[in-house]
């Protein structure tokens, strides 16, 4: 039963170039269901962070949303985010949809106590709230993310990396949004701390019915956390589907190769083959399928025409001409 | 599998010597500065002053120090075809004094400025790199010199050293340079030290250390080149302030009576009551010249930092 809380349709984001716009996000569409975790996977430069920032309308000054729609389902009906002004967005940001930024150290104000920063977020939603109520809520939020309430009066630098990430999550939850977008939430963390933070996210999702859009290059983290995944390359989604199906029998050569970079313990003890070349320059992308210069399956048809996502399985889409592909992940392993 | 000897020969030949590379780099920087309007103004003004400094004595119709220049009958004359900037209270040609002033002002400014920069950078690098007691000691010293009030200190130094003026190189002018250098280095140290503190934690310094680099090696090849941009930008300002400082000292009568800097000319002018007499031709030219010269350096300083990163070299 489909109950999408966030719908992105044909999103194009870019910046002006000499001969027209240079696109970093080239027609991205997906649906995030209520209470679902969707992973947006890809390498740096593929446009995944830009997509998140475009949804939140927090794009850097040079970038702009060129076309496409972003719809958020709230208690008061559908909100067309791309039509909102900055003021309109402020009503929506944090109260309906919030963002956990990459690199918590940069996103938290180093000269403000944590209680103040979370408190400010709460007051955003409820300007009338009295001080005691806010203080209580801050403590409650910190406890919710596994931090002792007494630490509310501390400064960000007094927390370790993992703890700071939890503070960021508490901040994102302050106004009880429906959707949380998490951009590389665990990248700089140790394996154990990462597991703790992911478990926390999972717990919160269950208890609060949150929908999570998890953006990361780490396919393994997505496999452990998300029910569905969308793999991005050079600005567009090349494959999307249920996580276990996509990672068990990937239907796009890029996904296949990418999986090779996440070897399975217990599988083959050999280095996966390298993907030749480098990701393309958005100002001068390859024609047709943007992956074709690096693709082991490329044929002439690949560099003509548009690549669009087509269904190749049960709720499983691929942008590859040759899908459905029989081959399992290159250098995957049998558990 | 080693590369071929042809490759080695080619690579050997393709490398320019360090001096050539520095010159090419400097030319690029100058061009980059000149491209910006502010930078162009600065460079042209400085070039004019340098030209005046070099050619001044040759172009000057008169030698102000020569006794033949005195002409009391024609004192305080307004500009005329004979004397383009009029005459002073002794009948000497002011245009000649103006031309000579360029030379003295420039030399004093440059020497004092560069000395400050060198001392300041050296102290800053040592303090920032070694940390610990060296840092504490040097920063303590730096704090003192930073708060030193320029004018009283200058007066004190000038008064103390006046009797030994002959034994100090450069004489009275040398004392001025000394005073300016002593009061000027502390600001550079502060900026350089801050930069070095962050630089020494950078991973490329750690890497060099891991490959066996000594402290001197790291300071010379890793710290110094990365600190040079702000040192240059700061030096330009210090040269400007030194020129101003020299003018100030001369204006207060602490200058070298035997040399004609723009500041000295101003001093003489005020002593001679030029303002009261409405003798604008006496004080205005040197005043404007100092102002423009200092502004020119500030303008170049403003532009210089952005122009000297390797990225900018490709632009």
């Amino acid at each position, binding site marked *: 039963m489909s109950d999408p809380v966030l719908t992105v349709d044909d999103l194009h984001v870019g910046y002006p170039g000499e001969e027209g716009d240079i696109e970093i996000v080239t027609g991205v569409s997906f649906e995030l269901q209520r209470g679902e975790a969707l992973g947006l996977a890809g*390498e740096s430069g593929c446009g995944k962070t830009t997509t998140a920032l475009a949804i939140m309308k927090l794009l850097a000054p040079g970038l702009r949303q060129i076309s496409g729609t972003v719809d958020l389902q709230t208690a008061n009906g559908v909100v067309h985010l791309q039509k909102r002004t900055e003021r309109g967005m402020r009503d929506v940001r944090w109260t309906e949809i919030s963002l956990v930024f990459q690199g918590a150290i940069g996103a938290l104000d180093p000269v403000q106590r944590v209680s103040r920063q979370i408190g400010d977020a709460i007051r955003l939603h409820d300007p009338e709230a009295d001080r005691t109520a806010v203080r209580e809520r801050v403590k409650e939020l910190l406890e919710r993310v596994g931090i002792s309430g007494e630490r509310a009066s501390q400064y960000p630098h007094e927390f370790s990396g993992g703890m700071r990430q939890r503070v960021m999550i508490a901040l994102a939850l302050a106004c009880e949004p429906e959707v949380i977008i998490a951009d590389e939430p665990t990248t700089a963390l140790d394996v154990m701390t990462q597991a703790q933070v992911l478990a926390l996210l999972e717990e919160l999702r269950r208890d609060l019915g949150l929908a999570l859009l998890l953006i990361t290059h780490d396919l393994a983290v997505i496999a452990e956390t998300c029910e569905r995944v969308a793999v991005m390359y050079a600005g567009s989604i090349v494959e999307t589907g249920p996580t276990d199906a996509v990672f068990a029998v990937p239907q796009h050569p890029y996904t296949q*190769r990418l999986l090779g970079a996440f070897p399975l313990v*217990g599988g083959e003890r050999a280095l996966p083959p390298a993907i030749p070349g480098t990701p393309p320059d958005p100002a001068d992308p390859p024609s047709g399928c943007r992956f074709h210069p690096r693709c082991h399956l490329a044929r002439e048809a690949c560099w003509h025409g548009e690549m669009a996502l087509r269904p190749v399985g049960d709720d499983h889409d691929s942008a590859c001409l040759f899908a459905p592909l029989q081959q399992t992940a290159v250098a*995957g392993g049998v558990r | 599998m080693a590369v071929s000897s042809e490759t*080695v020969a080619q690579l050997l030949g393709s490398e320019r010597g360090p001096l050539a590379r520095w010159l090419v780099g400097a030319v690029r920087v100058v061009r980059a500065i000149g491209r910006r309007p502010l930078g162009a103004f600065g460079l042209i003004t400085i070039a004019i002053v340098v030209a005046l400094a070099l050619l001044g004595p040759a172009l000057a119709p008169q030698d102000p120090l020569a006794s033949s220049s005195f002409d009391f009958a024609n004192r305080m004359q307004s500009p005329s075809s004979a004397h383009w900037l009029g005459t002073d209270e002794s009948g000497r040609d002011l245009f000649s004094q103006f031309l000579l002033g360029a030379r003295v002002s420039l030399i004093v400014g440059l020497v004092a400025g560069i000395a400050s920069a060198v001392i300041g950078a050296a102290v800053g690098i040592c303090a920032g790199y070694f940390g610990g007691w060296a840092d504490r000691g040097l920063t303590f010293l730096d704090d003192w010199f930073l708060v030193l009030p320029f004018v009283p200190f200058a007066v004190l130094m000038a008064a103390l050293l006046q009797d030994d003026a002959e034994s100090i190189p450069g004489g009275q002018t040398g004392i001025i340079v000394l005073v300016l250098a002593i009061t000027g280095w502390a600001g550079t140290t502060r900026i350089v030290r801050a930069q070095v503190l962050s630089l020494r934690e950078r991973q490329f310094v750690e890497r060099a250390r891991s490959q*066996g680099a000594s402290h001197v090696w790291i300071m010379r090849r890793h710290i110094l080149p990365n600190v040079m941009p702000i040192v240059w930008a700061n030096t330009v300002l210090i040269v400007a302030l030194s020129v101003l400082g020299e003018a100030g000292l001369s204006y207060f009568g602490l200058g070298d009576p035997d040399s004609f800097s723009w500041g000295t000319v101003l001093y003489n002018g005020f002593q001679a009551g030029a303002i009261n007499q409405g003798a604008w031709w006496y004080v205005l030219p040197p005043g404007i010249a100092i102002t423009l010269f200092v502004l020119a350096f500030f303008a170049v300083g403003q532009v210089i930092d952005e122009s000297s990163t390797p990225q900018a070299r490709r632009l």
Partner: protein
Amino acid sequence: MPLASAVTPLAEARGLEVTFRRRGRVVRALDGVDLEWRQDEVLGVVGESGCGKTTLARTLLGLELPSAGELRFEGEVLDRGGTRTLRRKVQMVFQDPYQSLNPRMRVSELVQEPLRMQGMPRGERILRAATALEDAGLAPAERFWHRYPFELSGGQRQRVAIASALAPEPAGLVCDEPVSALDVSVRAQVLHLLLGLRRARGLALLLITHDIGLAWSLCDRVAVMYLGRVVELGTAADVLERPQHPYTQALIAVAPSTRPRPGGRAAILEGEVPDASRLPSGCRFHPRCPRARERCAEEDVGPRPSGAAGQTAACWYPGMERPVRAVAPTA
């Protein structure tokens, strides 16, 4: 797997201790490490931040002197003078290629630098540097010689760093998370390069990583470190498929995988790695250990044989059985 090797290991640590003073407190960064780094093998060091892996790397490079215990290099005990030779024989590849190259130096200068330090004459220097560049995959050398780091991609920068490490023709290469700062699709290229160099030059490789999957596919032997000690050591297959120490078991269980297995959540340890200046009593892992018993809080434990031949674990109750009741954590 070979028996006791007749060839001297490149480096050998016995009871190695390295301590620092930080704000008046003693930090035992390495607290009794026994390890052999053998020629022509890839040794993996796995652990979280604070485990001492960086200090171990620095000590093997000669940047830190042992406070106690013994470090032998090519059979000779290391002293202060010996550290200088060490700097030539062991080179390091750092994690972040965007930070480990001086942005103001050209590729040619970067790669020649270690050779200049040794006083090598120019012709020979250029030959070695150009060769190292091409061996690192940046061929033809002329094309990259005059470039600056900002003109290169992440993968290329890391290759420059590798070339700079290769130029002095070291016997061993310490790689600290050599690919974690690179794009995923570029990682395999650099890893293939490292393995290829090991084969071509007979290098000993020490790979420091937190990535279990990487350790699995690349390493011959793996050492797991926790708070300054090696808590488990053995072949990659033994340690990663049949871990004996509860910490290793937890690490492997929580390490995310593209084919998730059940039970991962159960292995998440509470809290964080304690500060190295306040080591727990007894076994340093006991406050977080799901299997800890009384003995663990009282008696410290060093590596003991456990599991396969050649495998050791620093645990009183190693093995694959289920956890026993937990001891209340101290502090």
